[in-house]
């Protein structure tokens, strides 16, 4: 038996150089609001491909401009005209919902570097869909668990009034479990939070948890600091990546945020990645860069084992086995192809160059699996 397996492995390895060219379609947000997320994902993905030095992999890059209809038509073009076998890149969940179900039904593999809507993790899961980053609720759940463990009893929670905002507060409450001092939904795209900040001050809360991605978070943090409220702030990593911190400035110092990876993680692969990324692009990688890098590493590792064009079942099994050197350390998928992973807590501190940056302070959840895995029947 052993020799048989060894022979099979040897055959696969021997077959590897003969693998025909694999085309990977990378649709991500490279222009408009939120483009720094896509640019970081793309840059790190390309860094991994370049480091692998493979000339049998072609990456076709497309810019979705954060528009679902654009993403959908780009995906159709990639699948039908360019005949890509693997797709990746989408940052925003509403775009993922427009692209992923159609793509996987046509036999394409989709490996998500960021968007993890609950609809694709539970009943809507698919054998060809993998998420390397997280299920969307995870970082909010982690903060709920962390704040509970910290002994906080009366958080004031707020998020924009749209599906991801509601999921965020639901995820937070799932793990926090206790009562909250106040709960507010703001308008999507709101830029002035004076009214909410006054409510927070008057609510008697002992902490604030907020999920306000992009410019909304920048505005909130600046105004919160200017209003001299001294209630500590917590949130998911989305409002505290290194690029947003540049715009928020010192107002963010002291904020704790949850993330599944951070650039100062004590993992050799992570340190090597951070150094290589800094050297090539001259900036500190955000979590989106980390996710883009892991996504590329996973796809490349699976390509070593099987060719998606001729052996889709083998390629799928190779993706699911996730035998690659993740910058998060150990990495594994749950039954719904979403990661089971540790989620960390970082604190925003003044960096060595005076600019604010994130520092690892603890682990919020160990080996955390999303709440939807049980609903997934593949």
């Amino acid at each position: 038996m052993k020799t048989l397996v060894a022979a099979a492995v040897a055959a696969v390895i021997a077959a590897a150089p003969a693998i025909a060219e694999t085309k990977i379609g990378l649709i991500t947000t490279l222009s408009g609001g939120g483009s720094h997320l896509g640019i970081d994902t793309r840059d790190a993905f390309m860094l991994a491909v370049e480091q692998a030095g493979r000339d049998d992999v072609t990456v076709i890059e497309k810019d979705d401009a954060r528009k679902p209809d654009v993403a959908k038509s780009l995906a159709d073009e990639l699948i039908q005209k360019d005949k890509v076998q693997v797709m990746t890149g989408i940052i925003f969940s509403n775009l993922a919902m427009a692209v992923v179900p159609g793509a996987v039904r046509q036999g394409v593999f989709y490996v998500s570097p960021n968007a993890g809507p609950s609809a694709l993790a539970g009943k809507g899961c698919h054998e060809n869909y993998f998420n390397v980053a997280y299920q969307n609720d995870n970082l909010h759940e982690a903060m709920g668990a962390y704040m509970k463990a910290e002994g906080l009893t009366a958080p004031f929670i707020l998020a924009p009034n749209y599906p991801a905002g509601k999921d965020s507060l639901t995820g937070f409450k799932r793990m926090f479990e206790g009562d909250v001092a106040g709960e507010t939904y703001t308008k999507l795209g709101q830029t002035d939070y004076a009214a909410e900040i006054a409510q927070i001050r008057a609510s008697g809360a002992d902490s604030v948890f907020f999920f306000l991605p992009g410019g909304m978070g920048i505005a909130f943090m600046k105004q919160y600091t200017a209003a001299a409220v001294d209630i500590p702030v917590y949130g998911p990593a989305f409002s505290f990546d290194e690029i947003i911190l540049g715009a928020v400035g010192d107002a963010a110092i002291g904020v704790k945020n949850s993330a599944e990876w951070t650039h100062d993680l004590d993992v050799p692969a992570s340190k090597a990645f951070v150094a290589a990324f800094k050297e090539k692009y001259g900036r500190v990688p955000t979590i989106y860069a980390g996710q883009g890098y892991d996504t590329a590493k996973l796809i490349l590792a699976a390509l070593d084992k099987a060719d998606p064009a001729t052996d889709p079942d083998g390629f799928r099994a190779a993706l699911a086995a996730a035998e690659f050197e993740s910058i998060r350390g150990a990495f594994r998928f749950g039954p719904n192809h979403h990661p089971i992973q540790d989620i960390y807590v970082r604190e925003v501190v003044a960096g060595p160059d005076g600019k604010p940056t994130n520092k690892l302070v603890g682990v919020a959840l160990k080996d955390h699996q999303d709440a939807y895995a049980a609903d997934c029947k593949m």
Partner: protein
Amino acid sequence: MTLALLVEQILNGVQLGVMLFLTAAGLTLVFGVMGLINLAHGSLFMTGAFVCAWVAGTTGSFWLGLGAGALAAAAAGAVVEMLVLRRLYDRDHLDQVLATFALILVFSEGARWIFGPQPLWLDAPAALSGAVSLPGGAAYPIYRLAIIGAGIGAALLLWALISRTRLGMRIRAGESDREMIGALGVDIRTLYTLVFALGAGLAGFAGAMVGALQSVQVGMGEPVLILAFVVIVIGGIGSVKGAFVGALLVGVVDTMGRVLLPMGFSNFMPPSEASGVGAALASMLIYVLMAGVLVWRPQGLFPAHG
């Protein structure tokens, strides 16, 4: 709700109101005097914020940035008026909307091209950072009080300009009969450029002030533009006084709605549902207000051409 919180929220509403007034004043003047619908007004607001952030970042002085932002917006407004809008005064409103919408795209892409896609960082000046205690105990950011002061100051200057100076007299004359003041020998082209630059400068000033509160990014002008249109429709199109009253009304109603509606609903709903329903209704409230005002006074509160 305690008195301190109420006072604080009313101040928040007034602050939002005066910001809206600065943006709406230019819009309503341009419509009143030239009959032009200018969708690109939000882009001038953005121009002010970007230039202010850039100059403040380069020189380290917010005040230089503020001046530069207002001047740059005024200059951009004058250039746009001379190059593009001048040809549109005699066309119908649909052509104007189309052309000025195109200008939004040009300004947005231009800002992205010059300043990059990342939001810029603009901090309030040190002299205005921090907070003061209000009667009743709540702390209130000094910068927001300064915005209220600057907005009211700008409103007074604008009022003095329009009702007390020769330029203002011409603007008023232009509002009531543009052929006639042309026939009387007033250089109507220069007057139009001046009015447009004035409106643009006010919007740029507002953008620069607001830039220190939020993030300076491409597309920041459009949400303000929509509110400014609501303001001038409520106040009466073309009326600066109407814009002032309308802006304060919109600012206070919007702020108080966001606070009071979820509170009201939580009396007979579970808190998480109440905040969802309340927030949804609050975001509609100013449009309900606009519809109500229009039913009551179809020309707005202070019709310019009574």
